[in-house]
């Protein structure tokens, strides 16, 4: 009942603000309310943690919000502002760093722009043509997730002044991190997320400290300006030759941890690389591992190395004529296990 009531409030707010997209918002908000209601109904009897994932993904894509969050990793804390609005031509999202040098990322329709040397530059993103949404996950894949992670609701907690439901996803093996999320009970938005190591230590954490949901949110930047406020528009790269192509590269991984499935295999351009790069992505539903294979162009300062940032680990090594890079939000031992079992099984195409 609470849920339906707040959905209605949410709707009213939307109508006042923007008549153009009322119908779209009404449908999505109502659907969101339904999802939440469904989740709440079965909350009493059984663990419904996995259902929350759909709610979070849906709310994240369909809600207007703007807020300030902290990102905590490796004994550091960074503050950023994120603004997300839904326009008739899709979602717009802006991420700005508030400490240190200015960083800005704008995402729209799967395309990504970054502020590099005070100029917005379009990145070679592939998502638009591929498209992948949590909300589209079939139920069987969600139930498969429950064989890898044990989901548990751990109580009601307050985050950024809102009441949230905390849900813990504990892996059943030691090859991946635990994930804990705090979901705003009314809107379904994710207000806090922690990645935990196998001694329950925080590996990285996001948390909103201030958040406005709905209402009047600044849209002056949408599709129009660069970070300095000059109306230059978001530059669009020539599309030809930039998109990745799905391939079957012939590279295989023998020792994938249970539950990891290949989600993408593409030959893609990458900024600063002369030749296209093979990217193979494996995911277990909550985390992913990417393998990049490219010709060794002798530019590398070092032939081999580990590095990390928060939950993300990266390992690269030159093998023969190839530079192989593995990246993923999984523990180093998992990345190493994957790296050690990569081999070329011969071209299939």
């Amino acid at each position, binding site marked *: 009942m609470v849920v339906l009531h707040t959905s209605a409030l949410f709707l009213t707010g939307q109508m006042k603000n923007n008549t153009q997209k009322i119908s779209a918002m009404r449908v999505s908000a109502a659907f969101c309310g339904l999802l939440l209601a469904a989740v709440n109904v079965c909350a009493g009897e059984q663990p419904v943690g996995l259902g929350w994932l759909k709610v979070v993904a849906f709310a994240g894509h369909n809600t207007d919000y703007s807020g300030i969050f902290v990102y905590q990793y490796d004994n550091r804390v960074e503050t950023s502002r994120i603004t997300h609005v839904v326009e008739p031509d899709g979602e717009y999202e802006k991420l700005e760093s508030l400490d240190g040098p200015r960083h800005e990322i704008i995402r729209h329709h799967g395309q990504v722009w970054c502020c590099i040397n005070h100029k917005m530059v379009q990145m070679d993103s592939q998502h638009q043509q591929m498209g*992948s*949404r949590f909300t589209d996950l079939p139920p069987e894949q969600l139930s498969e997730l429950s064989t890898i992670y044990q989901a548990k609701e751990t109580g009601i907690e307050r985050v950024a002044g809102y009441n949230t439901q905390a849900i813990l996803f504990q892996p059943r093996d030691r090859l991946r991190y635990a994930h804990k999320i705090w979901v705003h009970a009314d809107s379904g938005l994710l207000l806090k997320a922690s990645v935990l190591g196998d001694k329950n230590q925080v590996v990285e954490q996001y948390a909103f400290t201030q958040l406005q949901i709905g209402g009047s949110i600044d849209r002056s930047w949408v599709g129009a300006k660069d970070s300095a406020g000059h109306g230059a528009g978001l530059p669009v790269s020539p599309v030809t030759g930039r998109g990745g192509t799905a391939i079957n590269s012939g590279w295989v991984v023998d020792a994938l941890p249970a539950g990891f499935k290949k989600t993408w295999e593409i030959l893609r351009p990458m900024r600063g690389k002369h030749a296209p790069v093979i*990217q193979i992505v494996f*995911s277990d539903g909550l985390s992913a591992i990417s393998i990049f294979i490219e010709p060794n162009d002798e530019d590398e300062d070092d032939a081999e190395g580990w590095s990390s940032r928060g939950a993300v680990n990266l390992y690269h090594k030159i093998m023969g004529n190839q530079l192989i*890079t593995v990246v993923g939000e999984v523990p*180093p031992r998992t990345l*190493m296990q994957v790296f050690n079992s990569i081999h070329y099984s011969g071209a299939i195409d």
Partner: protein
Amino acid sequence: MKQEISVLMDGELFEDEAGSLLNRIEHGSELHRDWEIYHLIGDVLRQPDHIHSDLSAKVRERMRDEPTVLAPRVHAVKQKMRTFALSAAASLSAVGVVAWMSMQISPEAAPNMAMQQNVARPVNVKIQPKSNDYLMAHQEFSPSTDMNGGASYIRTVSYRPDEK
């Protein structure tokens, strides 16, 4: 079966096989014990400094639970003998557990575990800005993007004061 468990722990079983094996482990106490011991072995190999399983405490506890024999003085020597025999048995059984544990590592499983032990750890090396493009390319396909939205892109631009 032990071989299967070892393969499962190495993450090399197919989904359905792993599922049914996990099911059997859950319901068979024998298998469940094997599973636990394999993890203990893995833990010992990976992080010998952080093992929490305190065998001696458990042995002591079992000893304490042994019935105290109340007997006339003449049997004191026998009693002493009994205590000695008990502690000897406890030590022997501890040795036995260790020996048994090492026997349980099948020759095929052993190299894998040894390999894990040697994994270099990226403790303090920060991802260099030149690697940001890999992070961004990865982030596009990571489920965390769907969950956290653009917030998880912060990983791709985070900076450190010492980074140039």
